[in-house]
């Protein structure tokens, strides 16, 4: 497959990208207009090849499977001209507040028009995932699908207020972190009281009574609050998309390695067409422990299952992942 440099002007801004021309040898000529493209935007502040060239490698993989793939640098990043803030944190905050959503949506429309695609699936890691969500939820990008790697639902603290609306919800009344942390702490407190009492009495330590645990959970759920740094706008956008018919692939590290709050948001959203896969033994950038290969495997398999139309056979399934089951989420109250 060949790569091509693509230069476009979107919203008056010049953007540079790479187009991975798909292997079309197996594709029926009459079906080219049915194939969606895939657009990856920058993973945070890294250039479009991604940390450890992950995006470039995944794009090559997907193109070999027959999908047109684009990787673009947003203004100021990679090869695209533009200005940037002084700190990484300020840039992240800009992304987290939706700063790159509009231009990404506009870019996807331009690529769809220029390459006569049936649609453009939006994807990214971390900041790229956030941008994909905003582009789809707030700027009518109308993607036929979304690929979200390690979306982060918290706001990065900055030492100066960023322009535009923030996203923080009310502070937790107990000053604790995520909902899960609150539940966990309550259970631990209860268990500690029971075991201490039992030990003093010389009795065998039994598991905490079921009614005690249930009471603790009910208490936490009733009074649960979003933490002060919750990106409410993003959470709202994600939940809206997750409840829509738009197919979404969400890839994260496992709960034990990831951020509990992010996983809580994913777990408690109503998922209509969401495939959430936790990849074990890797990190946030998926660059160790076989994360890179797993990401490629899952993306390709998901695309083939959701957007068939190419003739090549599936690749073998990766190691069985943990897949979340969509459930009705308990309502998180806000003060």
């Amino acid at each position, binding site marked *: 497959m060949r790569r091509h440099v693509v230069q476009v002007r979107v919203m008056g801004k010049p953007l540079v990208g790479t187009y991975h021309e798909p292997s079309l040898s197996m594709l029926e000529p009459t079906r080219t207009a049915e194939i969606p493209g895939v657009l990856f935007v920058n993973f945070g502040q*890294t250039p479009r090849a991604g*940390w450890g*060239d992950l995006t470039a490698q995944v794009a090559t993989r997907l193109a070999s499977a027959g999908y047109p793939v684009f990787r673009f640098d947003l203004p100021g990043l990679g090869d695209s001209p533009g200005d*940037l803030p002084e700190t990484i944190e300020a840039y992240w905050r800009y992304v987290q507040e939706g700063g790159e959503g509009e231009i990404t949506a506009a870019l996807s429309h331009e690529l769809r028009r220029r390459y006569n695609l049936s649609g453009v699936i939006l994807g990214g890691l*971390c900041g790229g995932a956030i941008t994909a969500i905003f582009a789809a939820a707030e700027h009518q990008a109308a993607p036929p699908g979304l690929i979200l790697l390690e979306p982060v639902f918290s706001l990065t*603290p900055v030492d100066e207020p960023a322009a535009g609306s923030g996203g923080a919800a009310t502070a937790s009344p107990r000053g604790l972190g995520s909902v899960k942390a609150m539940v966990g702490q309550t259970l631990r407190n209860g268990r500690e009281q029971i075991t201490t009492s039992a030990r003093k009495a010389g009795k065998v330590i039994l598991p905490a009574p079921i009614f005690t645990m249930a009471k603790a959970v009910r208490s936490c759920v009733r009074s649960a609050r979003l933490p002060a740094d919750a990106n409410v706008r993003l959470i709202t956008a994600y939940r809206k998309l997750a409840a829509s018919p738009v197919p979404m692939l969400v890839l994260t590290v496992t709960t034990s390695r990831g951020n509990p709050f992010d996983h809580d948001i994913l777990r408690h959203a109503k998922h209509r067409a969401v495939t959430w896969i936790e990849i074990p033994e890797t990190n946030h950038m998926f660059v160790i422990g076989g994360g890179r290969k797993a990401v490629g495997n899952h993306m390709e398999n998901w695309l083939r299952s959701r957007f068939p139309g190419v003739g090549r056979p599936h690749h073998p399934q990766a190691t069985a992942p943990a897949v979340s089951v969509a459930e009705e989420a308990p309502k998180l109250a806000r003060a």
Partner: protein
Amino acid sequence: MPSPRTVNSSSGSRRELEAETADFLDVGREQLYYVLHAAQGSKVAAAPRVLLVGPFASDRSHQYIAWVRWARFLANAGFEVMRFDGRGTGESSGQQSEVSFSTWLEDIEACVAWLDQRGKRPLTIHGLGGAGLNACRVFNRGLGDALLLWAPPESARDLLMGLLRRRLAADMALGASKSGGRDAYVAQLEAGVSVEVDGFEWSPALWRESKDLRLTLPDATESGKARPYKVVGMEDGLARFYAGERVGAPQRGRAAAKRTPLNPDLSDLFSKNADWIRESMAAVKAEKTS
């Protein structure tokens, strides 16, 4: 729509994208990505050139912003600038597990040949970090008229052993006690097995070639003598270039905000080094016309 407070514009004099040409060269079976920055100013037709070599593979993702800004600064200062990604890295095609120092040496030679086809002009070869080892090698073979090195390592083995620490740090973060430590990875590489370090798969050839690849400054070579070169270290203002931490995941919680440099003011570093290149090119030109 929120907009970040912007500083240190990366577009220099706000030139349009048309002043930069991004494309691929065919090198072997692969596509070598390059960007050519057209010289700005009144004497562009004979503008001296700078070939930017680097960053080293796994450093690319967090040094790229500053490196591109440097390229644009030089172009605004009247130089024609070419930068590229070695095969198997960045935008260039190729398998990471198949490339090595000798592959990247060939890539530099391919770029120099391509530039020469466009008309020979005085050329400065500029190596960044680990890529400086190969920049020095091609210069000692007679390519280029001046050599600029920023923070080159003493040897390729020193470079790789330093980078291996990142793998160990990642293992510790994962709690992977079964990794066996640095010696185990070295044994793996010695046995001809690839090792993934910081997202980049080291080929056995990369490891093997690193054994004998040392920094040989031009003074020690016949072809290097009498051609200007300069080595810039951290104490010379380069520290700000490397100031951006390798930050991969956003900070969370209510901790005090960090301020990790993304776009620091490098004007002093850039000006001084551009001046050196200009003076060197003038001296080369004078030498050739005398």
